[in-house]
C-alpha cells in the first residue's frame, strides 16, 4: 500500500531529515513509527500525502508513484488519505458537525449523505451528542477525537497520524489507540508516529524505529 525506495529528504537549510529509507507497508497493516524527536518521524509521514516531496528516492502510495502526481492531482491523493495531527487542526469558528463534514463537502457529497456519514463518524468516536458544540469548548481528548472523525468520515483506505496522543494522559492515549485499532480491523491501513514506546509495545503491532533520519529497526510485532 505504501512503499518507500531509498528515500532521502534534505531541507533547504541543509538538514537531512531522512536518509536512504526503504520500507513497505502492506494493505490493511497497522504500523507505528517511533524514534526521538527530530528522528524524521513527521517527515516520513508528510511524504505520504505529498505535504513534502522527497529529495531522492521514490514513494508509491496505493499503486501510484507520487513523483508522477502533479500539483493538480494532489487533492485526489489526499482525499484517499485521512490525516490526524497532534494539534488537531480544527476550525474553531465552526461546529463539531461542520468540522467533520468538511471532507465530504469538499468532495461534493449530497447533503443527506453528509449528515448520515458525519453522525456515523461522530458516533464511532463517541461524540454524537456534541455535534452542535464549538470545538473550543471541548477537552483536548475530545478535540483529538473530532480530528479523528474528520479523518475517517470519507472512509479513506489509509490513515496517518502524527503523534495523535502527544498531549493526552495514558488512559486517554490508550483509548485513542484502540480507536485506531478498530479502524484497522475493518481494513484501513494505519500509520502512526508516536514516541510512547510502552503503549506501542503493549498494542503489539509492527514498529519502525528511526534515528537521525535512518531506519534502524523494523520490529514486526507479535505476528
Amino acid at each position, binding site marked *: *500500500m505504501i512503499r518507500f525506495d531509498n528515500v532521502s529528504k534534505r531541507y533547504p537549510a541543509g538538514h537531512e531529515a531522512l536518509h536512504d529509507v526503504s520500507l513497505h507497508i*502492506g*494493505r*490493511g*497493516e497497522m504500523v507505528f513509527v517511533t524514534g526521538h524527536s527530530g528522528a524524521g518521524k513527521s517527515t516520513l509521514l508528510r511524504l505520504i*500525502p505529498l*505535504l513534502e516531496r522527497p529529495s531522492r528516492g521514490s514513494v508509491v502510495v496505493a499503486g501510484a508513484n507520487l513523483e508522477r502526481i502533479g500539483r*493538480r492531482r494532489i*487533492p*485526489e*491523493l*489526499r*482525499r*484517499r488519505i485521512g*490525516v490526524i495531527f497532534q494539534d488537531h*487542526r480544527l*476550525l474553531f469558528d465552526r461546529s463539531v458537525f461542520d468540522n467533520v463534514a*468538511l*471532507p465530504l*463537502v*469538499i*468532495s*461534493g*457529497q*449530497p*447533503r443527506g449523505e453528509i449528515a448520515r456519514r458525519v453522525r*456515523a463518524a461522530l458516533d464511532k468516536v463517541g461524540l454524537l451528542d456534541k455535534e452542535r458544540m464549538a470545538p473550543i469548548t471541548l477537552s483536548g481528548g475530545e478535540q483529538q477525537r473530532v480530528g479523528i472523525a*474528520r479523518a475517517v468520515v470519507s*472512509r*479513506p*483506505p489509509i490513515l496517518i497520524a502524527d503523534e495523535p496522543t502527544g498531549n493526552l494522559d495514558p488512559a486517554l492515549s490508550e483509548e485513542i489507540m484502540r480507536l485506531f485499532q478498530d479502524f*484497522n*480491523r*475493518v*481494513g*484501513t491501513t494505519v500509520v502512526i508516529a508516536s514516541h510512547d514506546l510502552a503503549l506501542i509495545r503493549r498494542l503489539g503491532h509492527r514498529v519502525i524505529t528511526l534515528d537521525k533520519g535512518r531506519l534502524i529497526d523494523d520490529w514486526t510485532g507479535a505476528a
Partner: protein
Amino acid sequence: MARGQPTKKPVRQPRRRTKPKADERRKSRLTIWLEQHLQAWVASLGRLYRAPMPSLMTAAVLSIALALPASFLLFLDNARQVTGAWEGGVRISLFLEQQVSATRQQELLRELRGIEEVAHARLISPEQGLAEFQRLSGFEDALALLDDNPLPPVIEIEPRGALDGMAVESLANKLRGRAEVDQVRLDRQWIERLRSIMALIERVVWVVAVLLAAVVVLVVGNTIRLDIENRREEIVIAKLIGATDAFIRRPFLYEGIWYGLLGGIAAAMLVEIGRWLIGGPAQALARLYGSSYALSGLGGSGLLTLLGLGVVLGLAGSYLAVGRHLAAIEPR
C-alpha cells in the same frame, strides 16, 4: 473502510463508487457542481454580512470610484442631447458692405439663388434687421435713440440639406471672395467648437474612468488579499484534506463579485442622488433658454452597465488576489 467487513485480511477492495448510468452520473455531478457554487455564493455573502463595517467601507470606496466616471459620462450625455437639438439648420450669413446699393443687393440675391448648393436665400435689409433686433432683443427704447441704422444689409443663405460640414465650409469660402461681401458667418462654428471641447472633456473623462476602474480592481484585490490572510488556517486545512484549487478559490471569487455588485448599486444611488440635487438648478437654467429640458438619468441600460461593470471589475480584482496569494499557501 467499508463497515461490517469483519476481516483484517487485506482483501482487494471493490471501487466504492458504484457506477450508475452515465447520464445519471453526469446529472448528479452537475447538481453537485451547482450546489457547491450556490453554497459558495451564499457563504461569501454571509461572510460580508458578518463583518458589516469593513464590507461597507469597501463597498463605499468602490461606489465612489464607480459613481464618478458614471456621473461625468451621464453629464456629457445630457450635454450632447442639449446641443444636438441646436444642430438642425446651418445658415450662412453674408454681411454686405454698407455702400452696396439696393439694386445691387437684389441682383446679388438673384445670383446667389442661382448657385446650385443654395436652397434658399433671403435678403434682410438694414431696416428689417433693425426691426427684428428691436423685437427680439428688448432694447427697443435704446435703439430708438440711434440717429442712423448701424446694421449692414444681410443675405441669409440656407444650404441644401445634403451638404456636409466641409461642403458648407467651401461654399462659405467661395462667397467670402465676392467684393460686395464684408463678412461671412457660419452659425455652426460655435457648435463645432463646443463639440470639440466636449470631445476633449470626454477623452479626459475616459482616462479618469480607466484609472478609477483600476482603483476598483486594486481595492477589491487588496480586500480579498486580507481576507485570504485571515483565513489562512482554513485554507491550509482544506488543502490538507483534498480541496481542489477551484474549491478554495470559489468563495473568494464570489466575494469579489458581491463587492462589485454592492459597489455598483451604491454607485447608481449616488448618481441618482446627484442628479436629484442638480436637477432643480439645471431646469431653472433650461427655462431661461426657453427649454423644458430635464436631466436624463442612468436609465435601465445605464444601470445594468454600471452593475455589470462593477461585477466584472470586482471579479477581476479577486481573481488577481486569488491567483497571487492562494498558491503561496501550502500546508506545513
